């Protein structure tokens, strides 16, 4: 494993600014009970990307994030953020929101931010007042700065946690489910905030179990399922990777299925009253002509482009918005 690290380290130290923001190689976490939370994860997040880390609850997203941030030691494999050899060396340039907000209930929002700023050895104490005020302002908590955290609503707590990630100049934001507990208005604000931060050149790594959310703000997507990365790429790549299907409405579906097979289509699914098949590169009009030639009663015909959701359900075997 030492060799893996060194190889990764060399690659990253060679071009610290240009290298990927996050690299993992064979990253694995097996908990003491024996269950594997993350299984040989090879992930690359390019600089400047807004990376959507998508997967159902329990698919290993949070464990991966904890390993990236050095909170959990991997069982095997390696990870690196911002080209640093160890997470701690990079963390001053990283803002992180891990598994929901956690603050001191008896301190005000502003005092809480000061507390975490004090823990960062690279933070400048002279500018802390300004930076805290700015961060609170960015998440719309300026008015509640002096209020005790105990009195914050769920949405305000989530906003404060996001504010904490914005206390300093960041090269990377790691946001674990950032819109949890936010109302639609808050969700939209966070989305805009992320776009805004990304526009400034910061890499953003957002985990979510909500496809729609990721689809709306991410440039890259990685899909986790039971500890494995099942798909990774840009949004367009993933969309184009999906194959369109042709759906034929007909009373004689078995005949139609035979005709489609004869035409050379694959993955044919006959059903009562209809039959579908993978279209591939074939032209729909040719397929129609072939069906008509065979004398099959075609009542309707449709070319179906699968949604991202269909793709992910196909990849992970379940839906993402189970909780939504």
């Amino acid at each position, binding site marked *: 494993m*030492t060799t893996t*690290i*060194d190889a990764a*380290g060399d690659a990253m130290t060679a071009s610290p600014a240009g290298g990927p923001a996050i690299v993992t190689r064979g990253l694995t976490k097996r908990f003491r009970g024996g269950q594997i939370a993350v299984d040989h994860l090879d992930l690359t997040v390019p600089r400047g990307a807004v990376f959507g880390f998508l997967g159902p609850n329990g698919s290993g997203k949070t464990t991966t994030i*904890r*390993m990236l*941030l*050095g*909170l*959990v*030691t*991997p069982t095997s*494999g*390696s*990870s*690196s953020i911002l080209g640093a*050899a*160890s*997470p*701690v*060396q990079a*963390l*001053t340039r*990283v803002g*992180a929101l*891990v*598994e*929901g*907000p*956690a*603050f*001191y*209930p*008896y*301190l005000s929002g502003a005092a809480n931010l*000061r*507390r*975490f*700023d*004090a*823990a*960062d*050895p*690279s*933070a400048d*104490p002279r500018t802390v007042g300004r930076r805290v005020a700015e961060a609170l302002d960015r998440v719309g908590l300026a008015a509640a700065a002096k209020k005790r955290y105990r009195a914050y609503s769920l949405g305000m707590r989530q906003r404060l946690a996001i504010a*904490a990630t914005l206390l300093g100049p960041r090269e990377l934001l790691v946001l674990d489910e950032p819109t949890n507990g936010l109302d639609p208005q808050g969700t939209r604000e966070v989305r805009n905030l992320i776009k805004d931060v990304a526009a400034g050149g910061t890499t953003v790594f957002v985990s979510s179990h909500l496809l729609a959310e990721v689809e709306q703000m991410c440039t890259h997507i990685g899909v986790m399922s039971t500890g494995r990365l099942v798909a990774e790429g840009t949004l367009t790549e993933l969309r184009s990777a999906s194959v369109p299907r042709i759906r034929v409405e007909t009373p004689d579906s078995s005949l139609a299925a035979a005709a489609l097979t004869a035409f050379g289509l694959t993955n044919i699914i006959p059903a009562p009253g209809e039959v579908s098949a993978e279209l591939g590169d074939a032209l729909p009009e040719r397929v129609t002509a072939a069906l008509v030639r065979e004398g099959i009663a075609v009542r309707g015909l449709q070319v179906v482009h699968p949604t991202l959701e269909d793709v992910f359900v196909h990849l992970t075997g379940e839906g993402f918005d189970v909780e939504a």
Partner: protein
Amino acid sequence: MSKVGPLGEGLSVSAGVQADSSAVSAGPRARSLSGDGPESPRGALAGVRAGVRLLRSEIGLTFRRPRNLALLGVLAVVPLVIGVAIRAAGDGADSFVGQVAGNGLVLTFAAFFVMLPLVLPLAVGVVAGDSIAGEAGLGTLRYLLTAPAGRTRLLALKYANVVVFAVAACALVAVSALVTGLVLFPVGPVTLLSGSTIPLAEGLLRIGLVALYAAAGMAALGALALAISTLTETSIGAIATTLVLVVVAQVLQAIPQLAVIEPYLLTSWWAGFDGALRDPVATDQMGQGLLVFAAYIVVCGSIAWARFTSRDITA
């Protein structure tokens, strides 16, 4: 004592830079990178400044927390209660504590005599037991570590904060008892356990000695509680375990058949503060006590370090 080296080294390195250990890649490269910081004087100075800032934040948190303020309140009130009780009961007792009625300064010693077995350990145990487990329970530990506070650095500063609290707690008891004694009773030269009498100024010096010795004993307890605190994610569990250990140790201490283990128990050395009340001061006994405290701090501190720097933060 030379074996303390690795721990001390670890502390200084990570005070300078956040050299952390949990790193997947604590290989040779990590070491050389982290070594750069403390070697340059400016880096070291900045590291110390940042450390002081976090320590101030810790202390601020400790002394602003309502629960801790309540504990300090109890520490301040107990000597007052003892004083008032003695005042109300009159000087019936012939014992050392009975002398309080004749000399207010003695109330300080009486206060430590009464509070060292349980009240002071309670206060220090709560703060120290809470130090890591409390942050883990709140979830703030993961944000401190991603800030990044650095594990060794955070642990060292948490312990420094516990020591500050222990000193403050003992000083508070001494001051509260002193003020109560001055107000309620006459004050004059102090009679020591050995029967000799020392002037007022030396009496105050001995009070300071007692308070410092007690603070050292409480700092040792703090190290124990800190080690327990790294083992769990519930602060109540860590605090309760610490206090149960204190009580069990004192029960064992009271069983004559178990006299053999008495010198190894932390609690049996707390009582050694009475060495400051003898003539001449029982430096051998108190010195041995301080060595025992130091041993507890080194052993418990290194256990806490080993555990905290290798543990997965899943809370």
